[in-house]
């Protein structure tokens, strides 16, 4: 009888532990102890990630001269938004890794062209601040030249990480995906685990 009760108790503990582990995934990057000064599309200052704490934030990385993959990542961000039954407390952030060309007004045009609503924030900043942030977030972005279009120093493309992150309310990166390819329902499911 005692053995049976003990067995049930241990089983219950294990089940609870498993459930807690599933709903509290390990931190991939802890952003809660750092802060980066960036600019919104209207040139207002944004402190990242401080200004997003208290929200679950879906984060991607783009540059606006990218004609193919970055719009796919942006489209996937919109698809994730559409997959959520309730978007309350969810923010969508796209950070440019090409601050040299992606000024706030250029990002504003991109936001308008791709019809991103007010839940989306597009951020840029000084090269130093953006580089520092990318380093912290393990995002690679480097210029690549293509001979046929290399006519002046302003014409370049970029090799870059193809990543979407989900950050919890405390500023900890909890989930990482391939930005252009992850099924949006997978991300929506993970977001709901953090609510």
């Amino acid at each position, binding site marked *: 009888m005692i053995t049976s009760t003990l067995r049930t108790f241990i089983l219950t503990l294990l089940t609870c532990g498993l459930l807690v582990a599933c709903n509290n995934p390990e931190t991939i990057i802890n952003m809660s102890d750092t802060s980066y000064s960036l600019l919104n599309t209207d040139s207002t200052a944004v402190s990242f990630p401080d200004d997003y704490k208290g929200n679950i934030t879906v984060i991607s990385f783009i540059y606006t001269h990218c004609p193919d*993959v970055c719009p796919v990542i942006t489209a996937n961000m919109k698809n994730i938004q559409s997959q959520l039954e309730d978007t309350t407390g969810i923010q969508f952030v796209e950070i440019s890794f090409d601050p040299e060309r992606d000024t706030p007004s250029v990002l504003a045009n991109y936001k308008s062209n791709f019809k991103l609503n007010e839940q989306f924030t597009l951020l840029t900043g000084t090269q130093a601040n953006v580089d520092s942030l990318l380093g912290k977030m393990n995002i690679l972005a480097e210029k690549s030249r293509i001979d046929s279009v290399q006519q002046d120093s302003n014409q370049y493309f970029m090799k870059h*990480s*193809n990543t979407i992150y989900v950050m919890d309310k405390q500023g900890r990166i909890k989930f990482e995906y391939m930005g252009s390819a992850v099924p949006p329902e997978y991300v929506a499911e993970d977001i709901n685990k953090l609510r």
Partner: protein
Amino acid sequence: MISKKILLITATALFFFGCSSQSDQTETKKTVILGKMELSNGWARPGSKGQNSAAYMRIANGTASNDTLLNIQSSAAEKAELHESYQDENNITGMRPAGQQVIAESEKLYLQPGGLHIMLMNLQRNLAVRDTLSISLEFARVGTKNVNIPIKLRSTSN
């Protein structure tokens, strides 16, 4: 007198040779091509003047011969080229020129997001959703094909 005759004969011979050569070129251009090169499902992404965009479509070579896509032009962009997006094992993505693509007889070439696409560089005007864009594709055998495509956010939207 003899030299005048020689000159006349030479000139006449050159005239006929010239005509013959011109006729051959015309004949080449008039070669009958069975079937047709079909461009369909075309669309392009929105973009602002001075930025880049990408165009996508399906190219179906319905002729009885292989053909090669040589050049692409659009009045909406300073330059248009066939490019290819790629992804490496470290989740790094990039883009590179795809060169001249041969499309085998009865085969299709798919230009689609994340793969082969027409790179429209330095847009000469804003491309907004519901605008249209004119693109010319020059093939080695069938010549130049023009197509008007819509600006859309994705292939399945309006």
